[in-house]
């Protein structure tokens, strides 16, 4: 009788532990994504040159895989996705890999005014010059009376 109750207690403890494991979304989740997902992402990013880290075309695939991976682990562990741990995880990733990318660097934008200015003013001046030249030449070819 004592061994049966002992076994029951052990079994009960195991079940409780397991249920804790399957329903809890505690630091286990954080560790899991660090272990499974971040490792692959690190490998992918190391393949790229550091200058390419800010280039969306080159990083979009691995970033997408990282996101997917965190989602799948969350499904497996019965966590709600997204959650605070995944947010903090991504903040750490961004801080490490994308901290010096410019805010609008991925959008197409005009060059700074120092470059844009001459690009606009020079053709206008050349136009005026050319017009003056044509007027002067057509004047000359007549011989004004």
């Amino acid at each position, binding site marked *: 009788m004592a061994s049966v109750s002992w076994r029951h207690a052990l079994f009960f403890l195991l079940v409780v532990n397991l249920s804790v494991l399957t329903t809890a979304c505690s630091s286990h989740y954080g560790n899991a994504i660090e272990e499974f997902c971040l490792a692959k992402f690190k490998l992918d990013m190391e393949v790229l040159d550091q200058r390419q880290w800010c280039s969306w075309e080159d990083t979009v695939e691995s970033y997408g895989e990282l996101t997917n991976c965190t989602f799948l682990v969350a499904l497996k562990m019965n966590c709600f996705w997204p959650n605070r741990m995944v947010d903090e995880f991504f903040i750490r990733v961004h801080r490490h890999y994308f901290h010096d990318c410019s805010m609008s660097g991925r959008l197409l934008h005009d060059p700074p005014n120092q470059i844009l200015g001459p690009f606009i003013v020079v053709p206008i001046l050349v136009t*005026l010059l050319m017009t003056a030249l044509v007027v002067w030449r057509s004047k000359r070819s007549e011989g004004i009376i």
Partner: protein
Amino acid sequence: MAIVGHALSIVSLLISLAIFFYFRSLSCQRITLHKNLFCSYVLNSAFTLVNLITVVNNPKVVQRNPIGCKVLHFFHMYMLGCNYFWMLCEGIYLHTLIVVAVFAEEQHLHWYYLLGWGFPLVPASIHAVARKKYFDDNCWMSVETHLLYVVHGPIMAALLVNLFFLLNIVRVLVTKLRDTHRAESNMYMKAVRATLILVPLLGIQFVIFPWRPENRLAGEIYDYIMHILMHYQGLLVATIFCFFNGEVQGALKRQWMQYKAQWGQRRREHCSMRSTSYTATSITEVPAFMYHHDCNSEHLNGKQTEDSELVALKTGETYA
């Protein structure tokens, strides 16, 4: 809708070109400039149509981003420049004819050809280089960039210079020539009037473009007007410079009467008719040789004679 506008423009311009090429009697230097202007309008409308049909309405092509669509855009910008620079050539020609050297021999048109066909390559190439380096979006379709001013800036400068020239001509005609040469200052005024109407019409789209009214009704009216100004330009130009031209109308009427009469009385050629009218004219104020080199002068001459056929030319004003 833009497609309709440009298609109509091409049709009317081709008709005008056919008229100018068929009636040899009409040709003179000003008409040569008109022909070049119309050619540039036809090509511009053609490129716009091709651009609209193959690139703008076709997101797959834009996504693929072939080099061909950027080349097309480059030629489109070049043709746009050609349009406005040929208008400028017309203005410079009139200015040289009237203000600078009133009793002018025939001008050499080489410099006009250079300004009209050659020079617009400069802003178009600079735009292409700048766009490639700094704003290389798919097919260069975006209009959100200030780099477009690389092309539009010189165009606006050309329009402003043109306007200045034309106003100067009007000033000279009104003040200096009025007392001494009343007859032909009126005639020149009519010649200038067409160009003076067209230049602001062509240019106003650049001025009022940024200011779309907030009011819904006014906004729609604005959209329609801008649409007409931008896409029906060729039609406007052809109408004002060709279809409203008294000489062209006279030539067409004569041709029509000729066909109607069939085997009937053969009319004298327009040229010989003109030469007889020179001798028959009763104008004494202005030297005759001036009339050799301006198209509208022939019309005026015709008005003054008693020749019965030329009486028919009295109908219709000379617009251009």
